[in-house]
């Protein structure tokens, strides 16, 4: 629970600011401190000078529009909760705002009922603890959800998505019978899934044909997993030398390349690490030209994405005379896979999905 949350309201309409400041101050039980800004630049300077819990942004503003403010705010203040409150009913702006990582998109309320819902949602956002949680059930961890399913003797399949990685947990009559994630199954997969701190999940119908692969009770499973996570967390952090690839990362990269080299239909693989110098490859005689092209292309299109306000660059596919190339990015790392030109789109998609899952996990 936040002590006294601070809300920053940004809109170019002064009447709107006055009205909403009063509403938020008087109607929210957490008694937030509300500050206002009538321009994007003023809002950014306020964010610079003091910490805020949440910012409510209008999109249509002169000079610096709401999307520009969101783009800067998301990059500079990743923990700040962002809500768009606008009069624009446009699917594209909603998509772009969500692509920038906002928490909610609201059309300006036109009735008491809508206003009530808006206030409730702001209250709920302010109360949400800043420790992660799964979308769909606020403030509930995955452990809570599994316990809930098992205690109610349910039979279901929990599908959990963490970025591009997907996992499944099969529950039959209140017992966890199997799990699958990133190419592994049973208990190790269960532990892997439970180590994810955020993501989204959906409960799917039970799969009664799934053979049982986990025989430990769900309480035992949760205990084992908690112990494994605690042990992993208590391991000392490796000392990093600036410019060098951390040992763990290097090992992971190399094992991934070994796996990729054993897959059919792949010409080469190249991984660019977080550090500018860090790179690893397989199947290339001279990786330098490809690396140069890769870095230039990724950097320039990332910048372009920011300028066009279209969210994060997620993937690039290139078709050449002799090769097809697929590039995926995760944070500051990039993975580039080369395929023979005859590879079909379906084959590429399937292979890339397998590799990206292994890479990200």
């Amino acid at each position, binding site marked *: 629970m936040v002590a006294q949350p601070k809300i920053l309201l940004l809109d*170019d309409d002064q009447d709107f600011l006055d009205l909403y400041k009063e509403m938020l101050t008087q109607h929210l039980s957490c008694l937030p401190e509300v500050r206002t800004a009538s321009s994007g630049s003023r809002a950014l300077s306020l964010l610079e000078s003091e910490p805020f819990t949440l910012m409510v942004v209008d*999109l*249509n*503003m*002169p*000079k610096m*529009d*709401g*999307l520009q403010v969101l783009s800067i705010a998301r990059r500079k203040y990743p923990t700040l909760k962002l809500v768009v409150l606008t009069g*624009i009913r*446009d*699917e*594209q*702006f*909603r*998509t*772009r705002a*969500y*692509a*920038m990582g906002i928490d909610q998109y609201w059309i300006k309320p036109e009735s008491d009922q809508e206003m009530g819902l808006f206030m409730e949602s702001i209250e709920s956002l302010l109360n949400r603890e800043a420790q992660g949680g799964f979308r769909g059930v606020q403030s509930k961890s995955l452990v809570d959800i599994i316990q809930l399913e098992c205690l109610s003797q349910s039979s279901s399949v929990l599908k959990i998505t963490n970025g*591009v990685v*997907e996992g499944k947990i099969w529950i039959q009559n209140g017992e966890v019978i199997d799990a699958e994630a990133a190419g592994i199954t049973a208990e190790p997969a269960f532990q892997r899934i439970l180590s994810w701190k955020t993501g989204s999940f959906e409960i799917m119908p039970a799969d009664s044909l799934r053979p049982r692969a986990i025989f430990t009770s769900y309480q035992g499973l949760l205990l084992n997993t908690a112990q494994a996570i605690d042990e992993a967390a208590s391991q000392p952090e490796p000392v990093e030398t600036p410019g060098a690839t951390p040992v763990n990362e290097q090992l992971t990269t190399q094992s991934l390349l070994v796996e990729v080299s054993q897959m059919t239909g792949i010409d080469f693989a190249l991984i660019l690490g977080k550090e500018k110098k860090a790179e690893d490859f397989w199947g290339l005689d001279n990786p330098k*030209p*490809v690396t*140069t*092209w890769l870095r*230039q*292309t990724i950097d*320039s*299109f990332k910048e*372009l*994405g920011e*300028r*066009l306000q*279209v*969210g*994060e*660059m*997620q*993937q*690039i*596919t*290139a*078709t*050449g*005379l*002799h*090769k097809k*190339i*697929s590039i*995926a990015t995760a944070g500051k790392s990039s993975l580039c896979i080369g395929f023979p030109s005859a590879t079909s*789109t379906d084959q*590429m*998609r399937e292979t*890339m*999905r397998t590799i*990206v*899952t292994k890479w990200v996990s």
Partner: protein
Amino acid sequence: MGLLKFLTGSREPRLMRLPSGSFTVDANCKIMTSTLPQNFPEGRMREIGQQVLASFRAAKQAQMPLTELIIHFAALKLLARELRGGAMIFLMPQSLNQPTKLSERV
């Protein structure tokens, strides 16, 4: 048209929508044809064209000439086809109603 636009044009702040359409640029990044709305700034088109041409050129220098480049942003898909030194570029805004998972792209 220009005069009409000046007389009737709104002074209200207006967010710019991402258009759906295509345009072609020559090797010097001069806009040759466009199906994008007139209000989409030419500067923006050139900016996109320059990045695309630079990527095609860099690929050529790396001894792997490209004929097509697809860039997936969270809210936009950009498709570029090499066109004798220039490029034909398609802009396809993506919608939340038609989610495309990363794993389904390529």
